[in-house]
């Protein structure tokens, strides 16, 4: 078979295989707690697929267009919270709720992006961080008791389609997550290889050159921003369905940083990198807790046991190691861990931004 045919066949085969997982009752000890088609395992796999997709939406911004955003979680949270609120607090039906959230997922990033993209580099990163912080604060503030504040509230099941309710229907949610991941992959692939997509990459490489060519980088950046955010919002909806209700964690800066880790872990700006990173991170985050509780680790002296039983510590350390030794992530290991071009270009962009943004250190009087 030709190379092109393999490139189509392998992923398609993988998707078909994944689609059949809920029918397979095989047990994979060590890797999963129960047989593959048990609700618990399916839930985990669904989360992995979901975050594979969400990580890819972040990569569209970071790895492809070179925009460093610290507020991606905000759009994900919009999907999570507004669906829950519409269903549970406003008592809307499922269809109207979805339409509402879809509209938000387009309008919000369009408005916010139009304003925040006026600045670039570090300033843009800060604005996105700040916007996400507003979201986090609003959720805690619990206006009109809509968001539930610091405590989670349960989504009103009555409003959800039966297919998504109940432990026995976890397999439907699994398939939904699979559909989401595949859809995001195809959309991002198509977008990146389209004409606007190539301009995103050109912007990442050298924004000035794009401007000189008479194209308006702003417009294209906004396109990428809206698409990426919309897909993240959609992911938020799926996430809500997988959980019992929304929690404030999805609005935190930590959450966006988690997405960043997923992308770098897998390999920023590559075809499969972000998805692999998202799947792997979600899996590790879930399973590392089990490793920590295992008899092997519990038997270690305190000095080792304490850090090793904390999944975030392991993940943070793993991330540091990756950045040091394999900045291209897992997919980059194939290219001998050389510094990927996506990071190299972002660096150059940050450096020129720095020249514009830094003010000389001001002292209050003339020096001697």
């Amino acid at each position, binding site marked *: 078979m030709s190379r092109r045919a393999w490139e189509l066949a392998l992923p398609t085969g993988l998707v078909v295989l994944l689609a059949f997982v809920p029918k397979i009752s095989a047990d994979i000890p060590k890797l999963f707690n129960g047989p593959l088609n048990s609700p618990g395992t399916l839930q985990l796999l669904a989360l992995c697929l979901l975050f594979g997709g969400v990580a890819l939406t972040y990569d569209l911004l970071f790895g492809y267009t070179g925009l460093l955003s610290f507020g991606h979680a905000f759009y994900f949270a919009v999907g999570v919270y507004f669906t829950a609120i519409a269903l549970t607090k406003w008592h809307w039906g499922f269809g109207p709720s979805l339409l509402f959230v879809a509209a938000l997922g387009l309008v919000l990033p369009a408005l916010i992006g139009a304003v925040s993209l006026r600045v670039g580099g570090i300033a843009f990163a800060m604005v996105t961080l700040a916007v996400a912080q507003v979201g986090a604060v609003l959720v805690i503030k619990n206006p009109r008791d809509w968001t539930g504040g610091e405590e989670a509230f349960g989504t009103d099941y009555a409003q959800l389609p039966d297919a998504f309710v109940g432990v026995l229907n976890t397999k439907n949610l699994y398939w939904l997550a699979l559909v989401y991941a595949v859809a995001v992959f195809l959309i991002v692939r198509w977008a990146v290889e389209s004409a606007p997509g190539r301009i995103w990459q050109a912007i990442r490489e050298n924004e000035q050159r794009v401007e000189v060519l008479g194209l308006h980088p702003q417009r294209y950046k906004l396109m990428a921003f809206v698409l990426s955010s919309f897909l993240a919002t959609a992911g938020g909806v799926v996430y809500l369905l997988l959980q019992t209700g929304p929690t404030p964690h999805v609005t935190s800066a930590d959450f966006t940083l988690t997405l960043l880790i997923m992308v770098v872990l897998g390999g920023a700006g590559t075809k499969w990198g972000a998805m692999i990173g998202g799947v792997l991170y979600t899996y590790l985050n879930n399973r590392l807790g089990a490793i920590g509780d295992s008899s092997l680790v519990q038997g270690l002296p305190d000095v080792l046991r304490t850090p090793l039983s904390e999944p975030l510590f392991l993940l943070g350390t793993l991330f540091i190691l990756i950045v040091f030794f394999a900045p291209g992530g897992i997919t980059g290991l194939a290219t001998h861990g050389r510094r990927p071009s996506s990071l190299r270009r972002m660096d150059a962009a940050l450096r020129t931004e720095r020249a514009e943004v830094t003010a*000389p*250190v001001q002292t209050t009087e*003339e*020096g*001697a």
Partner: protein
Amino acid sequence: MNTAVAPAPTRPLLAVADLHVYLGESHVLQGVSFDVPEGGVTALLGRNGVGKTTTIRALLGLTSRRGTVSFDGVDISHAPTHRIVRRAIGYVPEDRDVFAGLTVAENLRLAARDAQPRYELVYDLFPRLRERARQRAGTLSGGEQQMLALGRALLNENRLLLVDEPTKGLAPLLVTEVARALDHIAELTTVLLVEQNLAVVRRIARDAVVLDQGRVVHSGDAAGLLADRDRVHRLLGVSGGGHA
């Protein structure tokens, strides 16, 4: 026994061999080779954009480079910038690069490396700097900033000064002042001078090296080169003028 030893051939102060520099995709220097003899001024000439400033920066390690550079017999091809400079090389950049937020005196103090920096020499050569010692360098005029940049390089007993277009953007009166200062500087130390103003070159340069399309296309006596109008026109473009 009477063995008359022939004097050893004088080693050039700076020897550049097969210097290559890439700026992005562009192969700016494609094997630049030249020598700078000790004492006097060597002019580095060429059209706009040919790579003169890039050469200077490459010598200092401010940009990544391939090739061999040796200073006073020591290989500095891969040394980091601050080590190269500490071998007693001074730098007067094209854009002066004085620190706007620091005062004139602070700018000088920062540059001082020797045990006895030559403040008096600098202030005598550039009295205006003495007047403005406590002023923030960002408030100086272009000409004054140039003097500060030159003074900064003079503070230490440098064996080589790399001076990049010191008269650029200056009014004729200031050009004369700078040229006069360069005269004086040339008596004290070896200078590699990038300069578009040929009158200045004519006045102080002993040797000339011409760059074109990433390589050295001429090197030799400065006066001889500048007397040859055709050559000047061909290698350096239209302007043969400028005033000193």
